[in-house]
């Protein structure tokens, strides 16, 4: 019952799909006006960053069908890229102009390692924070998708790769700060604007990046490549018979997702003021999958809201005296309920509600027209 042949109808559908995305962005940008509290803004900024990370997973899992259990790897790499640049900025203050980061001094390192040197340039660091995770993902994707690895094996490989990188970072403490991570950083400054973790500038920076990520991801899902990626998700071999290079598309969406996660990681360092090996830990990585599932993985806005709501709720529950001892149980029960009763997550629920309203209205108005399908909305 598809009536989307005409351009106006297609445009209408696009608007309908963009609407929730724009509403969410507008709310995020309006929040500082409503909420005159720097502490809460800082807290929300952290949740927004986790939201961006979850958008990136939604892109590869919900649209590409690639369940990346190591999504935090890209996030962590981005986070370390930013932390390295901000750490180098503290050198003149901490250890003199020709000095080294403090943890290197502690580990008796004599000269700045070669891979730290380019991070003296902030633009390089920012580019590296996205390009390095994308390249690592592309390389990993090349091996996996060229080798036609699918399903649960992809999840195992991505998870294992992340654990390996995590262990290397903890082990090479002379170059990475080890278990403590990279701490005691300078403030990020771009074009003379200082991004204080508690300031509004940082909040707007995060909000801006979140909107950008959402729009880029949305544009990708509507592009030709994006449609092919979704087709691969639904029926890989059929797409291959059509003559498409399936692996190439998979590698692309995998790398794009990693780049967005890297961006989120960089923002996380700015908001949290440190980088830690736990940022590419199993716990965070699996949490992202849960947020994505709760929000609805086939919806970018849904994934985003899933992260913000669940992380926010987790924070609120663990801070309320009543749940201090039991908050992990409550969160667990919530996930079980969502998985059992809302397989498509909150986005699925919103979709059903919306269709139900539309149908009621049409039934009341006696309009006998079919409803344009809203599958695979934003």
């Amino acid at each position, binding site marked *: 019952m598809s009536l989307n042949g005409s351009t106006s109808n297609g445009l209408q559908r696009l608007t309908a799909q963009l609407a929730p995305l724009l509403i969410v962005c507008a709310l995020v940008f309006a929040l500082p006006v409503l*909420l*005159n*509290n*720097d*502490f*809460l803004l*800082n*807290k929300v900024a*952290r949740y927004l960053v986790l939201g961006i990370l979850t958008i990136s997973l939604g892109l590869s899992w919900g649209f590409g069908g690639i369940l990346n259990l190591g999504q935090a790897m890209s996030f962590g790499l981005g986070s370390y890229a930013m932390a390295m640049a901000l750490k180098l900025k503290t050198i003149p203050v901490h250890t003199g102009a020709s000095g080294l980061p403090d*943890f290197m001094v*502690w*580990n008796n390192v004599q000269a700045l390692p070669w891979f730290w040197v380019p991070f003296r340039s902030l633009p390089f660091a920012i580019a590296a924070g996205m390009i390095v995770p994308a390249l690592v993902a592309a390389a990993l994707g090349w091996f996996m998708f060229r080798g036609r690895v699918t399903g649960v094996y992809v999840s195992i490989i991505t998870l294992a790769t992340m654990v390996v990188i995590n*262990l290397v970072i*903890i*082990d090479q*403490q002379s170059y990475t700060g*080890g*278990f*403590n*991570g990279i*701490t*005691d*950083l300078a403030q990020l400054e771009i074009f003379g604007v200082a991004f204080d*973790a*508690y300031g509004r500038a940082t909040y707007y920076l995060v909000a801006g990046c979140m909107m950008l990520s959402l729009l880029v991801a949305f544009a990708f899902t509507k592009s030709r490549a994006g449609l092919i990626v979704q087709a691969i998700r639904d029926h890989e071999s059929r797409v291959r018979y059509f003559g498409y290079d399936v692996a190439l598309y998979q590698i692309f969406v995998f790398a794009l997702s990693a780049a967005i996660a890297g961006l989120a990681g960089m923002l996380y360092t700015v908001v*949290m*003021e*440190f980088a*830690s090996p*736990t*940022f590419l830990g199993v*716990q*965070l990585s699996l949490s992202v999958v849960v947020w994505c599932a709760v929000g609805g993985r086939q919806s970018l806005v849904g994934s985003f809201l899933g992260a913000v709501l669940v992380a*926010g*709720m987790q*924070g*609120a*529950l*663990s*801070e*309320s*005296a009543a749940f*201090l*001892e039991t*908050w*992990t149980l*409550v969160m667990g029960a*919530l996930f079980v*309920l*969502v998985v059992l*009763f*809302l397989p498509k997550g*909150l986005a699925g*629920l919103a979709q*059903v*509600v919306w*269709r*139900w309203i539309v149908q009621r209205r049409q039934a009341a108005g006696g309009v006998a027209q079919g409803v344009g399908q809203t599958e695979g909305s934003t």
Partner: protein
Amino acid sequence: MSISRRRLLRNTAAFGALAGAGFPHIWIKNADLAYAAGGEIKVGVLFSLTGTTAIIEESLNKATLLAIEEINAAGGIKGSKIVPIVEDPASDPATFSEKARKLVVGDKCVSVFGSYTSASRKAVLPVFERQNNLYWYPTLYEGRECSKNVIYTGAVPNQQQDEFVPWLIKKFGKKFYLIGSNYIYPKEENNYCKKLLEKYGGEVVAEEYVPLGHSEFSSVINKIRSTQPNVIFSTVVGDSVVALHRQYRAAGLDPEKMPMASLTTSENEVAAMGGEAAAGHFTSAPYFMVHKSPENQKFVEAYKKRWGADKVTHFVSEACYFQTYLFKQAVEKLATSDLTPPNIRDAVKGQETIAPQGKVRLEAENLHTWLWPKIAQAKSDGQFEILVEAKEWLKPVPYAAYPGQSCTEKGLVEKS
């Protein structure tokens, strides 16, 4: 349409109820309160109650709460009650940072007591420095930190090793095998140990680091057999301590000839591994549960009465306990209107209190604490026997391994 209307309604209602239970907390605004409003002094208590380090950190939470309850029961501080706000940072550095922000900026606590691992302290440090608040850190650690926003009440390397290393050389011999977990704390302790070995004519036969959480020590034990050290100097932490002791015993090595000398094995770890595995090995620390003093007797009795007769006290929980009393003394010195974190810091400088381990003093120069080093041997009943007690308390020197540097009231000073 795959979902029926009834099912949808049911689901919506269920989720709505859950959401209602959780969300209102997010939106409560914090009124701008003074630090001691309405006869209440708010402090944060930030020890993990869940996650990997929960077992040890729970005991720190309990010791802190015990001290707060005692102070309140005795009338509070000049009539004001201490109100502890307990948060669970879940053994995760990012959560530590989030909860620290909540306590400092959201709740406007005047001080926060917290952290076991250095990683978590490093994670919250920017919060306390940027907000100029005060963090009370009870754990022994590697030193080499000179923050104006942290009060350190645990031992630094010189306080655990100055007496210990020469004693070990004299009693067992000069060949040391250094084994530690792979992170900054063991490396710094070993840096200092090597300096002392050089000074007293000892030697290092091997220096080895195992990953955190490592539990397979057979290759280490083989190496110990082949190098035949006189002392195994251990800075292994957490569950690895338990594994190392058990496997040492299973391999049939003899603590009489080749003991482990640890800076990290407390009553808590001994309880986890069982007294049999620990028996015969040595630990250096400022406090042991068996220490005889009226203050310690009172502390141990109160702790058991409050939290259970099977509970043990140890050198980190003791520091939690006495640092809360140091906090009280500092606040007592201030007028209510002057109650701010920087003023508390200035007031606590030079404060003395009779802790369970003996009389301690907070050093004005570097905000670390004068402590009473002790050397003890573990026994099979899970307790220690104190063999050597320092005759004088020992000054904290957080930069002991780095003669060119010292921590002063103005910050880190380098002598060139």
